């Protein structure tokens, strides 16, 4: 494993990766819409360059094959100069994780841009859409290359802003406006937590830089006798809360399905390349700050989200919502994977998931583009009309369902085996829960994804009119689909599990299994592989049984499980729960405050007014006799003094000069002769 030699040129190229989209954003915002084609080629071109640079640098790393590498460009830009403990400087941290992410994000973002050229054609805010999309890409690319929490957080917030703008792209629609507000506010909860976590780390360790923080953790542990001190646990959990918000984990998952109100490329962007991946990325970056107990919490949150969202996904009819819940569920996989210690597995899944989920979303966009509806019951039989879309989506579905040889299989398998190892190592029911949840969720994933494919593309067309209208999308849409589909198939082989397992060794906090643990790992791997193939096969079979062969009637089953189905179909009433608790509580608070304002504050003011009136009467008397007397006295004195001053103030400039000179001479004399 040779060392990778990184010189200034490489770092300059890396710095260009986020900065070119940023520049393109400004150009596009300011002048883009006056340009030819409303300037859409500016962001697309910028992303093409950024993706090429990112892939180029990644390829450089791949050729050397040193997954444990980590290079830094320290303090490339001093944001707040000063002594070390109060300085904030931006730099680049380029390690295996960010290398992979840069390449993947760049490529996917570029493809999504390309797809949008076709999808958004003729939109009213076509130009600004591209500008925002471009800024979004900047946020994610900047985030993965950040070497410190400060610039990380800045990019994080840029993404929050962009998600708000883009989800609310069709702001005429009330539902879109509500969705973007919801997304913004919900993620904001996580953001505040993240900010507090960063603040805690800063107060204690006086640095924002990841590498320095990582180096500091063992020191802190050593000082504290090997245990995590309370503030570090708190900080870790708060940072993880940020990830929960951004990555739409339970209980802050509610914004992500609603975010489907945005244009489909935006959904693809949020779900595949940028927003939600940022949370997973953050969890990986902050893994060291999580105490063992916190890690279990992370694993539980992730695995619970996985199964929770998967059940909802089964009952949805809106194609994009199915995909949305599938994303939530898959994110749960990743988070759980990281939580149980399989950082590499979680990240592997993030990358493969980025590829096939982007493909799925873009494919669904292509479908929606063709039939102008999002309801699956109105589709059907589309595979004859849209062969490319069908093919790519099918491939991606196979990948997400975990069919062997497709990308998702490898990554999901890695996560499952990590949970198994985790369970075996600790052997308690609490530690086993993630494994149980995730295996169930894996089966469900296969089921609902094939439900989607079967309802959309197979069977007879259920809406003849729409079917007649449907046609394959233009090349700008199909080409990205094809490329992404290609990666959905080959992602697992290209990276290979090995790359990510090797890669994991370079990550902070990664413990390489040895001895018994290695044995566990080996054992778990076999179980996980066969287990996941089994559940995936079962899920697929079940889906075919329901929706292709009609062995069972979905409607009848729904009937039979009536209350449960309704409960699940309505997303476990989480939104309603929030409405009833959080929102209601806030409303109640405002009512209380209003009451307080009306009665207490206004009352106080009125009271003060009354007192003031009374005091005024007193003061009036006082004024008339005492103050006026004093004023008259002062006036009289002033007149007296004025009479004296008149002697000096002649109104002649020259007299003043003379007096000034006399003063200066006097002062100089005093200084000279006294000294």
């Amino acid at each position, binding site marked *: 494993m040779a060392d990778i030699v990184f010189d200034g040129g490489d770092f300059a190229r890396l710095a260009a990766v986020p900065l070119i989209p940023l520049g393109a954003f400004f150009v596009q915002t300011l002048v883009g819409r006056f340009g030819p084609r409303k300037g859409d080629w500016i962001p697309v071109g910028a992303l093409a360059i950024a993706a090429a640079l990112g892939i180029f640098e990644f390829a450089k790393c791949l050729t050397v094959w040193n997954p444990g590498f980590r290079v830094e460009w320290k303090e490339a830009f001093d944001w707040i100069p000063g002594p070390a403990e109060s300085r904030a400087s931006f730099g680049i941290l380029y390690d295996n994780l960010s290398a992979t992410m840069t390449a993947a994000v760049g490529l996917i973002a570029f493809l999504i841009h390309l797809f949008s050229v076709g999808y958004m054609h003729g939109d009213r805010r076509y130009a600004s859409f591209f500008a925002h999309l471009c800024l979004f890409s900047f946020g994610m690319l900047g985030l993965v290359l950040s070497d410190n929490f400060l610039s990380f957080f800045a990019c994080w917030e840029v993404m929050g802003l962009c998600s708000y703008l883009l989800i609310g792209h069709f702001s005429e629609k009330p539902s879109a406006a509500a969705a973007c507000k919801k997304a913004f506010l919900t993620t904001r909860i996580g953001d505040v937590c993240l900010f507090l976590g960063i603040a805690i780390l800063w107060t204690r360790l006086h640095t924002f830089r990841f590498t320095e923080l990582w180096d500091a953790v063992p020191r802190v542990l050593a000082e504290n006798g090997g245990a995590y001190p309370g503030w570090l646990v708190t900080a870790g959990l708060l940072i993880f809360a940020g990830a929960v918000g951004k990555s739409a984990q339970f209980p802050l998952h509610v914004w992500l399905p609603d975010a489907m109100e945005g244009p489909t490329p935006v959904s693809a962007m949020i779900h595949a390349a940028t927003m939600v991946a940022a949370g997973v990325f953050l969890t990986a970056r902050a893994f060291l700050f999580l105490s063992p107990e916190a890690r279990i919490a992370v694993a539980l949150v992730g695995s619970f989200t996985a199964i929770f969202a998967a059940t909802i996904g089964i009952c949805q009819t809106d194609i994009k919502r199915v995909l949305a819940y599938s994303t939530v569920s898959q994110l749960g996989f990743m988070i759980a994977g990281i939580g149980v210690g399989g950082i590499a597995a979680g990240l592997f899944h993030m990358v493969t998931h980025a590829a096939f989920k982007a493909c799925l979303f873009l494919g669904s966009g292509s479908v929606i583009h063709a039939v102008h509806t999002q309801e699956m019951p109105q589709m059907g039989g589309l595979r004859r009309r849209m062969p490319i879309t069908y093919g790519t989506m099918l491939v991606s579905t196979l990948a997400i369902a975990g069919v062997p040889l497709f990308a998702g299989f490898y990554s999901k398998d890695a996560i499952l085996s990590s949970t198994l190892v985790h369970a075996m190592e600790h052997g308690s029911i609490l530690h086993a829960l993630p494994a149980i949840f995730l295996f169930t969720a894996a089966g469900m994933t296969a089921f609902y994804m094939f439900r989607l494919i079967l309802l959309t593309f197979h069977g007879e067309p259920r809406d003849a009119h729409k079917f007649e209208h449907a046609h394959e999308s233009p090349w700008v849409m199909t080409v990205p689909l094809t490329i992404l589909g290609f990666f959905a198939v080959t992602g697992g082989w290209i990276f290979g599990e090995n790359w990510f397992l090797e890669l994991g060794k370079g990550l902070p906090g990664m413990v390489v299994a040895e001895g018994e643990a290695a044995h566990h790992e080996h054992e778990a791997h076999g179980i996980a592989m066969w287990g996941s193939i089994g559940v995936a096969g079962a899920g697929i079979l079940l889906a075919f049984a329901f929706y292709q062969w009609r062995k069972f009637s979905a409607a009848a089953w729904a009937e039979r499980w009536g209350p449960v189905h309704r409960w699940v179909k309505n997303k476990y009433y989480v939104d309603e729960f929030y409405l009833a608790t959080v929102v209601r509580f806030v409303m109640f608070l405002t009512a209380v405050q209003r009451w307080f304002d009306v009665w207490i504050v206004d009352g106080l003011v009125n009271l003060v007014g009354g007192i003031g009136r009374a005091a005024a009467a007193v003061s009036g008397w006082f004024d008339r006799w005492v103050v006026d007397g004093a004023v008259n006295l002062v006036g009289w004195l002033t007149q007296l003094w004025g009479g004296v001053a008149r002697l000096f103030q002649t109104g002649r400039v020259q007299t003043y000069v*003379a007096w000034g*000179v006399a003063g200066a*001479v006097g002062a*100089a*004399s005093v200084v*000279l*002769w006294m000294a």
Partner: protein
Amino acid sequence: MERIAFALFAAIAVGGGLVALFHRSIVHSAFALMGTFLGISGLFVLLGADFLAVVQLLIYVGGILVLILFGLMLTKPDPSERKLRRVLLVLAAVAVPAAILVARIASAARWAAAEGPLPDPKPAAREIGFLFLLKDAYLIPFELAAFLLTVALVGAVFLARQPHPPPPGGEDR
């Protein structure tokens, strides 16, 4: 040689000042002031500040003095304003303490090289230019001066452009 030149220039400068102070006609005073400016310019040359000497010529003689003459030409002369007694009195009142003070300061201070002859000075225009453009030297005074000149220009134009209001309290004057 230098002594003669110094005496000449000092005489021109001080003589010009005296004439300017005492002459009955303000126009003559202004022209006498030209002598002062020329004399000081010569003194600058003797002090090795050739650039400054030329600037003195250009700005004081070519600019300020012309401006003052303009002002003179545009206002009413007041030939009876000089009272010789007052001028002499003021001069004495100012000169005596000033002379005492300067003598006192001169006797109190010690200067390293107060006596000549000094080494030949070097041409300074280029160095002054560099000093004005160097960040560590006088860039900020330079910028401030530019700003001040702009402000003064705008102010002067503003004053000149204002339509003259009727004299305040014009009725009863």
